[in-house]
């Protein structure tokens, strides 16, 4: 049973790989990139590397529940044929075969001369419960009973024995029994354990341990490894929503994100946010940013993280040598682009980012709160979780979105099926992704936006998105209550100029500005003249400028500059005596050390940097006068940091296929060189020994090794290699007939004894 002779099949995994086309090899190397770095010398080494435990585990992590179930069934069956395997998996045979093909492509399964075999290491790597595709059945015994035999023997059992058998199956197929005799006939059996042992329904393994062989477990489960179907993909809870509505909601969120990013970074350009010593951003700064942006802290954390991953925000030392967060020079080019281009840049970097802003606000295992921008706030699995979540959403039929309450749990169930081996944190990661995607505008109302779909497919979402966003406007409506409303996003240059002249009161699709004496004075401070202000207002307003605003500007101009402040000796002079008297008698000028010098001149003992803002606080409108009597205007410096080095991942994509092709060529040539080398009696390098031993493990059977023991004595031993891990070979030594370990670096030669060498 089970050992079917087949004309196909390969002597070793390396042989099988040698026969593969370049396309198939490149699929393997791109799906399991760890096999290609560093490039293996030949196919022997490639095959050996594929069986390394960490690599196997990584490959297993990327399998669906069905694929894992098929692999598990193969481990239970041992060597077998595809057709036979199909019968032991409770799933559609077509699906099983497809899964098998993928497993073969990933070299988790290979075709030996004796039939399909799982790669060594796979059996140990398959951990977890039924949800991870692990049936808990033991491999079949070497000489398995036929299912009908098992059936007959099961029928003979007493009720307690049957109960015991079921119990052992549920407990993972292994049990300990000290009292039971191992060699009894069914008739002599004195207790349930002996009943089972005598019928070979349990098989002794070592002292006091019995196992339930796979063929018995299969019959108990009704012929398949699992009692549940393995190919039933969990459905998603959805509701109907028009795609147009989804796009509108998402477009609104995307617009908001870009707007807030620009707002915050603009602000931090002049008022940098202090960085923590650990590199993150403190809770207080986060709170301030959230208040500034009118969002909650979660949303602020996401915006800040997005800015950082998109390369728009970085830390640098300020003039005092303290670390601060400021926008990078990329921010300037970024903010010159239109909204769709800006959004795509941010969304792309978010997709690939391992950052987890969702953790901000909670505490790490040590009880410390997670800070935004902290380097540790990242997980390797995050990009995959994001991508898979969005891909599942992309798979929804048009007009369907995730249901409000039940949608996320169903999404989670689907992902648990697609990647059963992912860590426990996945539930959080998926929930965060759903929230972040909504905040980012990749989704709306639980459905993927049409432009985000384009982005996921690797396209440019620019045009799709541009159609959804409000058109920039070039005018405002000025009203008598001294507000101006821009009924849409203002053109960037216009917005910047208007922001000088008026304070922003409310933002969103539209922007409300308010003119105050202070805001008008700010523009005058920057060198605007009254005529310029009037002209600007006249051109930008679609309605007549209300009289009170005209009056406000003129009135501000009238008082503006009435007091002039000198820098050299810090003097205050004004043509208006009373203005100075007024200032001098202000109850709050004490600390400024003002003294009247002449009817029209005051001096101050305060440095001008301190004096000037104080005077403005007190309501005066001074201008700074240079030594030659001209008026000086100043504006705050805009700080920029250097853009962080481009991450490798971005560049890697372009060269990926070329690199893989080069690797394959190298392997082929290395392989030819190895084949032409004399095969016998050579002393091997440790990596050569590893390759040879792994190959022996795959094929099964004995090898002759030359081994130097602790005392320096060289011996030749015949061993059956079982596994190679951590520089140690575990093998059954024919001479002592027990399992022992050998240090790989002491093995001088490896020679196969079974096949033609």
């Amino acid at each position: 049973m089970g050992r079917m002779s087949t004309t196909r099949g390969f002597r070793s995994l390396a042989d099988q790989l040698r026969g593969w086309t370049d396309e198939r090899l490149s699929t393997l190397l791109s799906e399991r990139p760890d096999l290609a770095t560093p490039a293996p010398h030949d196919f022997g080494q490639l095959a050996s590397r594929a069986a390394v435990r960490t690599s196997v585990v990584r490959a297993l992590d990327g399998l669906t529940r069905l694929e894992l179930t098929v692999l598990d069934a193969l481990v239970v069956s041992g060597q077998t044929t595809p057709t036979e395997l199909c019968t032991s998996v409770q799933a559609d045979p077509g699906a099983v075969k497809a899964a098998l093909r993928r497993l073969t492509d990933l070299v988790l399964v290979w075709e030996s001369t004796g039939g399909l075999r799982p790669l060594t290491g796979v059996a140990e790597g398959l951990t977890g419960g039924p949800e991870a595709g692990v049936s808990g059945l033991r491999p079949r015994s070497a000489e398995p009973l036929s299912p009908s035999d098992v059936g007959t023997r099961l029928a003979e059992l007493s009720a307690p024995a049957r109960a015991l058998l079921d119990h052992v199956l549920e407990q993972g197929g292994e049990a300990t029994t000290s009292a039971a005799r191992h060699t009894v006939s069914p008739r002599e059996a004195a207790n349930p354990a002996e009943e089972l042992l005598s019928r070979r329904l349990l098989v002794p393994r070592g002292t006091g341990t019995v196992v339930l062989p796979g063929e018995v477990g299969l019959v108990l489960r009704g012929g398949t490894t699992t009692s549940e179907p393995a190919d039933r993909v969990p459905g998603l809870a959805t509701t109907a929503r028009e795609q147009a509505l989804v796009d509108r909601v998402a477009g609104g969120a995307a617009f908001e994100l870009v707007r807030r990013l620009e707002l915050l970074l603009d602000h931090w350009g002049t008022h940098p946010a202090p960085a923590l010593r650990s590199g993150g951003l403190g809770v207080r700064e986060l709170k301030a940013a959230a208040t500034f942006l009118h969002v909650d802290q979660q949303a602020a954390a996401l915006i800040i993280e997005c800015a950082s991953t998109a390369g728009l925000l970085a830390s640098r030392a300020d003039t005092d040598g303290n670390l601060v967060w400021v926008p990078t020079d990329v921010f300037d080019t970024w903010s010159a682009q239109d909204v769709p281009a800006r959004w795509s840049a941010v969304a792309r970097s978010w997709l690939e980012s391992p950052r987890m802003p969702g953790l901000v606000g909670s505490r790490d295992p040590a009880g410390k709160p997670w800070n935004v921008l902290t380097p540790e706030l990242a997980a390797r699995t995050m990009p995959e979780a994001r991508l898979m979540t969005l891909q599942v959403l992309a798979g929804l039929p048009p007009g369907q979105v995730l249901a409000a309450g039940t949608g996320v749990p169903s999404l989670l169930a689907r992902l648990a099926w697609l990647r059963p081996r992912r860590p426990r944190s996945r539930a959080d990661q998926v929930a965060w992704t759903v929230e972040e995607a909504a905040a980012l505008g990749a989704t709306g109302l639980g459905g993927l936006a049409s432009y985000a779909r384009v982005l996921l497919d690797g396209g440019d979402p620019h045009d799709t998105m541009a159609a959804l966003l409000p058109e920039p406007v070039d005018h405002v409506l000025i009203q008598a209550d001294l507000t101006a409303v821009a009924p849409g996003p203002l053109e960037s240059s216009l917005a910047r100029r208007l922001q000088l002249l008026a304070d922003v009161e409310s933002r969103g699709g539209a922007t409300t500005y308010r003119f105050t004496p202070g805001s008008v004075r700010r523009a005058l401070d920057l060198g605007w003249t009254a005529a310029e202000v009037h002209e600007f207002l006249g051109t930008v307003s679609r309605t007549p400028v209300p009289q009170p605003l005209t009056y406000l500007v003129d009135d501000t101009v009238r008082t503006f500059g009435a007091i002039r402040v000198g820098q050299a000796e810090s003097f205050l002079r004004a043509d208006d005596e009373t203005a100075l008297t007024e200032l001098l008698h202000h109850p709050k000028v004490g600390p400024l050390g003002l003294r009247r010098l002449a009817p029209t001149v005051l001096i101050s003992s305060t440095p001008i940097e301190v004096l000037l803002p104080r005077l403005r606080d007190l309501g005066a409108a001074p201008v700074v006068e240079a030594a030659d009597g001209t008026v000086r205007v100043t504006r705050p410096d805009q700080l920029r940091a250097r853009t962080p080095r481009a991450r490798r991942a971005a560049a890697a994509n372009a060269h990926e296929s070329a690199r893989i092709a080069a690797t394959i060529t190298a392997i082929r040539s290395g392989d030819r060189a190895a084949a032409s080398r004399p095969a016998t009696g050579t002393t091997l390098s440790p990596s050569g020994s590893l390759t040879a031993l792994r190959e022996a493990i795959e094929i099964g059977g004995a090898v002759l090794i030359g081994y130097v023991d602790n005392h320096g004595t060289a011996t030749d031993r015949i061993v059956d290699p079982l596994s190679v891990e951590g520089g140690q070979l575990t093998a059954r030594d024919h001479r002592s007939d027990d399992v022992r370990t050998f240090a790989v670096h002491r093995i001088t030669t490896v020679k196969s004894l079974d096949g033609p060498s």
Partner: protein
Amino acid sequence: MNDGPLIVQSDKTLLLEIDHAQAAACRRAIAPFAELERSPEHIHTYRLTPLGLWNARAAGHDAEQVVDTLLEFSRYAVPHALLVDVAETMARYGRLRLEKHPVHGLVMVSNDRPVLEEVLRAKKIAGMIGERLDDDTVAVHASERGNLKQALLKLGWPAEDFAGYVDGEAHPIALDESEWHLRDYQRDAAESFWHGGSGVVVLPCGAGKTLVGAAAMAQAQATTLILVTNTVSARQWKDELVRRTSLTEDEIGEYSGAVKEIRPVTIATYQVMTTRRKGVYSHLELLDARDWGLIVYDEVHLLPAPIFRMTANLQARRRIGLTATLVREDGREGDVFSLIGPKRYDAPWKDIEAQGWIAPADCVEVRVTLPTHERIAYATADPEERYRLASCTHHKVQVVRDLVAQHPGQPTLVIGQYLDQLDELAAALDAPVIKGETPVKERQRLFEAFRSGEVGLLVVSKVANFSIDLPSAEVAIQVSGSFGSRQEEAQRLGRLLRPKTDGRSAHFYTIVSRDTVDADFAQNRQRFLAEQGYAYRIMDAEDLPA
């Protein structure tokens, strides 16, 4: 992109472009749940507040309607977070209900146990509730009905009050519409109130709030207690009720500092209600003197805090609040909501003006420049003295005289804060003056003379701010005010907004001293006017035609 008239901002303001074709429809649709914050000439600003949303819930609107309305009229995509917030806020109203219980009297019931648990654990609530009757029901001390509602609102779980009202002592009252007719909006307002049980009706000055009160009384057919701001206003209420309803003078009592009558319809002043002797409110018994079926609160926005406390104990009686604005300078809008009731009716000023019920107004700010010696006096004065110094400048007298001369034959009010200044003006203009110390009789005589046209110019202090009907006033000149109170500005403008027979527009002048706190305060007040849609001009006193 939708071409709607509404822009929904992420800070929960709604901008309505009023020149848009759909603006009127949109305004009607959003009025139930959004508070009109500003209504200048082009774009009106509404705000979504929890109170506004709960008002809408109380009026029977649900979150879905609100969200649909926003999506329907919005020009751009509506921020998702805002929609979620609207739904969540509205869902908070009515999770807790106050109901009548056959055995335990008043109970608080919840269909959402976690909310009930949260609320019961709040310290403030502890003293107001009795035993837990079952998982979802808690007994409430009947006397704490109002306090509990107030406390629950503060916790963010406003309760819906289904406990009903006592009918009160029946008393026949009918509107006497032989010579006049209730206007449509007045009828709507009274009906909305009656169906809602208790609540507040918001109508601009001059829109006939007294008649809404009278209509509510006619609905109630029961003894009524009316609380008003002052004695003059009490007399006006009395006159109006005698004129417009079947009530006779004998049925209406006045309960004020001077007279203490308790009749089927009693009008009491806030002042008398809040008078204390030895720390005790000595007139509290009035509230229980009769089995009142309806309580009318005039000028709710001025309701003093002690009256709120008294009102907490009157929750079993129907309550109607009348006001021109829900904005309170002290920010106690929440108390109005929980103790008197949600807003039941609201109409924007400009709408009513457009319907011709109130007069349009021309607002002008006149700036005078202080002479140098006054500027120096001002600059060296103590901060608390500055406003008085600036607003009482002698310069203003001449400007007032010029303005009065510009409007010959038009009934004019000169309004001020400082008595010295008023006396000076009265002497300069040779006009009678009404101040706090003027006896009520004399006040009434002068007001009557002004109404009849016998006196064409009146100098008044802030006693005239509220509830005194001077429908004939066409020009108001404001020389000083109480530190930029928006309330006051609305009231003073209100003096002028009673419709004029010939449709002439009213004139509202404010005289301020340039470059002083007077001008700063004036800015505050004007902002309010501009936000109400009254465009104003600023002039220099020198530019006035002499």
